[in-house]
């Protein structure tokens, strides 16, 4: 067994720069949660299937459990903690609340991160498109129905705001 040396890494998470000494094998999901105390990113499977740990790397969704924290030097990471700044929920968060689109809440952060990015790319998705994107996030509580309607509703609100 080789014990790799800790590496000095500087990463930007939610616009803040962190200088860390990291064993290179440490997963981004673990470093976010344990070293940066950003526990909103949840670990559900550690093999990239469940989507609970989805975060944004340079604005694009990615599995934190399939990423090593050392890789993030020079990249910007965004987590759920940065999504609503202060008191106001984003239209997506608000719609999930109103449509009862979450129950235990464990998968919720991953879903929000996925769709905050996706709705930038496609502001007017069909139900089939929403379901296609949502299929990368497992939810064991809701049956997805209310999440789908929440995303649809959020997209409409965002389009409306965009017009104003």
């Amino acid at each position: 067994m080789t014990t790799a040396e800790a590496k000095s890494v500087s990463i930007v998470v939610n616009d803040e720069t962190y200088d860390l000494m990291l064993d290179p094998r440490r997963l981004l999901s673990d470093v976010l949660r344990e070293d940066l105390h950003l526990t909103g990113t949840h670990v559900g499977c550690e093999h990239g299937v469940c989507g609970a740990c989805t975060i944004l790397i340079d604005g694009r969704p990615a599995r934190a459990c399939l990423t090593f924290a050392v890789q993030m030097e020079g990249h910007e990471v965004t987590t759920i903690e940065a999504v609503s700044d202060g008191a106001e929920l984003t239209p997506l968060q608000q719609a999930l609340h109103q449509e009862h689109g979450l129950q235990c809440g464990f998968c919720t952060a991953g879903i929000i991160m996925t769709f905050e990015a996706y709705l930038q790319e496609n502001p007017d998705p069909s139900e089939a498109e929403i379901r296609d994107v949502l299929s990368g996030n497992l939810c064991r509580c809701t049956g997805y129905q209310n999440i789908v309607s929440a995303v649809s509703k959020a997209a409409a609100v965002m389009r409306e705001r965009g017009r104003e």
Partner: protein
Amino acid sequence: MTGDTTFSHIGKPLLRREDRRFLTGRGRYLDDIVLPGTLHVCFVRSPHAHARIIGIDAEEARALPGVIGVFTGRDLAEWTAPLRLAPPIEGLHPVEMTTLPIHKVRFHGDPVACVVAADRYIAEDAAELVSVDYEVLDAVVSADAALSQGAVLVDDSLPDNLVSHQSFSSGDVAARRAEADRTVEAKFQLHRHTHVPLETRGCMADWDAGREHLTMHIGTQVPHPLRSQLAARLRLEETAVTVISPDVGGGFGQKIALYREELTVAALSRHLRRPVRWREDRLENLTSASHARETLCRTRTSVRADGRILGLELELTEDFGAYCFYPANYMARVIAMILTGPYRISDYAFDVKVVLTNKCGNGPMRAPMAITSWVMDGTIDAVARELGLDPLEVRRINALRQQDLPFTMPTGEVLEDVTPLETLEAAAKAIDVEDFRARQAQAREQGRYLGLGICTVVESTTYGSEFYKAAGIPGSGHEAAWVRIEPSGAVNASVGLMGTGQGYETPLAQAVAEGLGVPPEVVKVHMGNTDIAPYGMGSRGGRGATAGGGTLFLCAQKAQKHVLEIAVGMLNLNDARGLRLKDGIVERMIDGAWVDTGISLADVARRAYLDPTALPEGVSPGLDISYTYDPPPMTYSNATHVCEVEVEADTGRVSIARYIVAEDCGTVLNPLVVRGQQQGAVAMGLSGALFEEVVYDESGQNLTATLADYLVATSCELPSIEIIEMNTPNKRTPAGIKGMAEGGIMGAIGSIANAVNDALEPFGVALEKLPLTPQSLRALMREKDQVTETVTEVRTGKE
């Protein structure tokens, strides 16, 4: 206990108050809680299904920097008591297990040693270095094999692998068989499932050596029963253990038992005098947490030519896995007890066998009785097929009607305030069966195979103490609550339930608000900490609303009475007649109208706490009210599920075109939350029926250890679910609450299986086995060579 069906707060679709923290990443789940100096464990698990442990060499592991120690079954046996399950039930063998196996492992994934290290990475490094010398034994990996002559014993202390066997008979099924026009046999095989909460198991044990007190942080559905177990197994007083359950990322029945890993972690914290934590990874969760179902049922039904059922016989065999964390008869018995559910059947017999095999142990999973409604309504469909009758008509002729109620089922269970015929008619009307049959006929001409499946469910929701007593299982169905009005008028409340995502905080606040007479916003319900919450039975089955909500409602009513007694003094009245608390204000009935007295709950609270000498004679200071309540022996909700599918003949793929549920679950605390539960339950049932399956190979290797192998349905496989709400209150429960949340599974399994059978009718095949994989459906279609020319044509030809 009911009567008043006009509520101010119960029944309102209030948005959930826990949402905000979950939406912003500020929920607090087990793994979010940090204690300084915490050690991490990793379990060394058996790669074999069945093997003798010859020796364990952990020297190399112990030498690894960062490793604190490696502990085995022998160590744990010194520090903990074994689990002995020996309820006095005829036909049930008593069983016992140590905290970790000492002599042999019984399934692929059985824990054999526990590594403690500075972090999980090092713990995993060390676990690889632990060398276990095994003598591999033959494994029994099916109930048939386990019951065969000379089968190896899973549990060496038992005479055979048949750990539980019970029979029952009511009426005279043999006589009914003799007088029947036809006897119809049917078979139903439900495969092995596992729960897959998105948050796996885990715990953090914190032994306070000074106070000699254990604090166990753990996501659990049952904080107090877990505390009792922990204390007993650690040989501690119940005063020396606190269980704290934070937010829980799903349970579905997997977070009830005290598992061996959790007890090990607690014992190690005490031994090492350090906080110790275990984070179960997904591989462990899928192979070693708890499995469920794997039940084979055969029915024999004696019927008249018009479809009327005269007698019903059930043979059930459950493959229970290697260990009993619950009395082995527990799940199977409920299936047998409530099987006849929605139908007027009096002559009934069952024979129930539960068998040990070399697989992960079974436990209750959302709808422990999941198979029930498939067996019953699948039997009805088999009768209809055999007699050439309309399945809907066969249901109608056998369904319980209002004039039959209360109806005593052959097993002695009493059904009251249920509406199975009404939900059946509502669902059938919603889907428009006639219109469907026309579309089905037209589609068949084009080589497309549509199917309609109906399944009526009578769901046992709240188990009262009398049920347990009758079943011979030690335990109680009661629940406990307190309501405390603080000096400021704020309302704290607590109950012994613990949510795992249902959203209890909102509906339970509504129940308190209703009983007390305050707006729900001022009520905060505290759950999950055994030092705060009263000793209750926790969350299991569908008891949350009736037992939890009901107890809180009654407790809050009692609190209101106390408040009004104080108000009597403040208003210089003789008694509380004509007074009520409404929206936190004491009101008085004057000339037939409620009038504000100008006294608020805060005024009353101030007097109760800060000016007790001014209280009326005999009224004690403070506003701290406790209440316990034992629900009726059993409460039942009912529903009818209708599912329309299309089976693609050339690939076997099943797609769901429409899904409707007509459900009567009595008074609901919060319809938003109830709908979420109904949708979620149906989704879980469909996912299980179509995709999920724990697979072991012939040697007992678990082949479904990742989420790429154990398939949970995604958003693209599940339909939107239409719900028709019906609300017949239960006359015997507080506010008429019945409970629900498991019936959706029962109905989903039954309705989709029946729908696929209906679709496959032209092929002359009927399925007996789930899951409904495309390859299994193709195999069914292929088997039947009498497939007509048109069908062959379709398979290879036009789409």
